[in-house]
């Protein structure tokens, strides 16, 4: 078993208690990705600005967490029970953070951010508990867990990222406590530009690491 698979094996039981898919195969790409620095990531759009709360309930500006470092940000809600949705996103962030921890060049230049889109239930305290499950006993680049005070403050941020959350018209999703959405994670450069957006089909750890390195090389040049 190689080191990558060992990492995966250690994370298969997600802190949320939800069984996530075995992403050990995620690096078994059906292709050879282009080498870091051999391609240019598009400047897709600016990361949105808005008020957020950290796990201590302190009001912050989102830009504090989307500029100054290369940032991988995912949008989740902590009660999501879809093993191929939010738990998978957090699981992949944890995996990438652990890999970055072993890369001296990346470690000091990266940041991870998890932002909730369920302000009704994901209080700062709920986010702290959720964060503990991923941070406790592990080291790596900073990983910030954020929420918002209200839907009113959340919606402009969601719109800014283009992260849509839906509801069944018949009320079934709301009744079940579900917030259907498309899994998305955003790679943001140190200037606050979103340079790649990963949905499930794109969210392959090796490719994400290559993209991070590409941004790093871009900064150096």
């Amino acid at each position: 078993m190689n080191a990558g698979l060992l990492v995966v094996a250690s994370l298969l039981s997600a802190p949320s208690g939800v069984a996530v898919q075995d992403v050990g195969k995620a690096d078994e790409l059906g292709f050879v990705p282009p080498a870091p620095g051999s391609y240019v990531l598009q400047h897709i759009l600016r990361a949105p600005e808005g008020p957020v709360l950290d796990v201590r309930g302190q009001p912050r500006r989102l830009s504090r967490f989307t500029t100054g470092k290369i940032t991988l940000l995912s949008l989740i809600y902590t009660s999501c029970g879809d093993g191929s949705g939010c738990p998978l996103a957090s699981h992949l962030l944890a995996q990438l953070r652990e890999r970055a921890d072993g890369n001296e060049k990346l470690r000091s230049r990266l940041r991870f951010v998890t932002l909730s889109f369920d302000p009704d239930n994901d209080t700062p305290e709920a986010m702290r508990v959720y964060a503990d499950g991923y941070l406790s006993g592990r080291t790596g680049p900073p990983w910030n867990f954020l929420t918002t005070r209200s839907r009113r403050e959340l919606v402009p941020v969601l719109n800014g990222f283009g992260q849509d959350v839906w509801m069944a018209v018949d009320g079934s999703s709301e009744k079940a406590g579900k917030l259907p959405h498309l899994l998305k994670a955003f790679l943001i450069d140190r200037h606050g530009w979103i340079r790649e957006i990963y949905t499930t089909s794109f969210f392959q750890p090796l490719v994400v690491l290559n993209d991070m390195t590409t941004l790093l090389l871009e900064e150096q040049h």
Partner: protein
Amino acid sequence: MLRASISSMWLAAAWLASFTLIASPGATADETCNSPYIGNLIKGQEDYVYVWTLGIEGLGDGSDKLVTIDANPASKTYGKVIHKVSVGRRGEAHHMGLTDDRRALWAGGLDDSRIYVFDIAKNPAKPRLVKTITDLSAKTGYVGPHTFYALPGRVLVQGLSNSQDRGGVTGIAVYNNQGKIVARYPMPTEGGGDGYGYDIAINPKKNVLLTSSFAGKQNYMTSLGKLVKDPEAMKHFGNTMVLWDLKAMKPTKIFSVPGAPLEIRWSLNSGDNWAVTATALTSKIWLIKQDAKGDWQAQAVADIGDASKIPLPVDISIRADGKGLWVNTFMDGKTHYFDLTNPEKPVQTFEKVTGKQVNMISQSWNGERVYISSSLLANWDKTGTDDEQFVRAFHWDGKELSPAFEVDFLKEKLGRAHHMKLGSKALKMAFDDVPGRPPLASR
């Protein structure tokens, strides 16, 4: 009422199930012909068929328009036009594409190169025109926006031509979902490339993007009758397909595919590593597939009708399981079905004349419903009584296409029916009740 209620519940269940699928690495696509990055799969009963329609001078308001047809059999207005949005001008309406979040339909004009963005999230029954993008030519030099293909947060727009010589050399423009230009990529003109473009199709699991090639504005805006009598003009059709490294957006291999390869469809069957296209002028199905060494190869695998009679294959639609392919041939008005169980040897198992001229074809996810439209290009459509304009819906039981409904686009004073996309009302935007939520247009 009970029927409608059950239908709604089933729709919602199908929608929710679709989210699970889109979040799963095993899921690859929407209603078989869309980008694999589009969320909110419709795998149940579609509620609407959106039809991007070319205006006809003197018919109705004469303008291009987005027409909404009620496609849910449980509805009182099933098979009827329930809404239309005119854009106030004619610009050779052609193809459409959904954004990855399925909030918007982008629709293009091949003549005026305008791109219209319709909001279909707020009220799926009544799309609204929320933005008009007019900078394609100025920002890229490309004209004739043809294919609109979703990437996360972006739309790839494949041009057909250029503003310099109106020939076929063109490129791909990338816009973000807000309508701002992000990047441009010229079609390759070296290493065997002819620089032409037409369709785009992505296989994310292989990190590949495939493009096909058609013709420039000089050709597609000329009447078909005049064009076929001009040997020099007939030389200016695309004869290539290009394989791109998707991540790098760089061409990696150019295939010789003579005769204007048009629509591209990847097999959505998990584990498959192939796509098909149909060549308009040489009337063949081509297979693009990895060989045993992992190298991509292209080969002609079947004839479509009698090529010597130029039946002109136009649109194709692949089954969700990759086991069958619909092909429309414009000139003879036939709809063909090919068994693709062995993609290297497609076998035609059915054909039927479905109109005097037929172009686009779309099918529901389960393959049981098939929609056909009539118009190819304003100057290529037939004339006189052969110039039927319609959307016809059929039931498919594996053996026969049975009529379900028809909308006569001339009688309804709508225009020429071209590209179709399916819509649903099962989901709505969460937090839509939040005061001050900005509309799509201002995002």
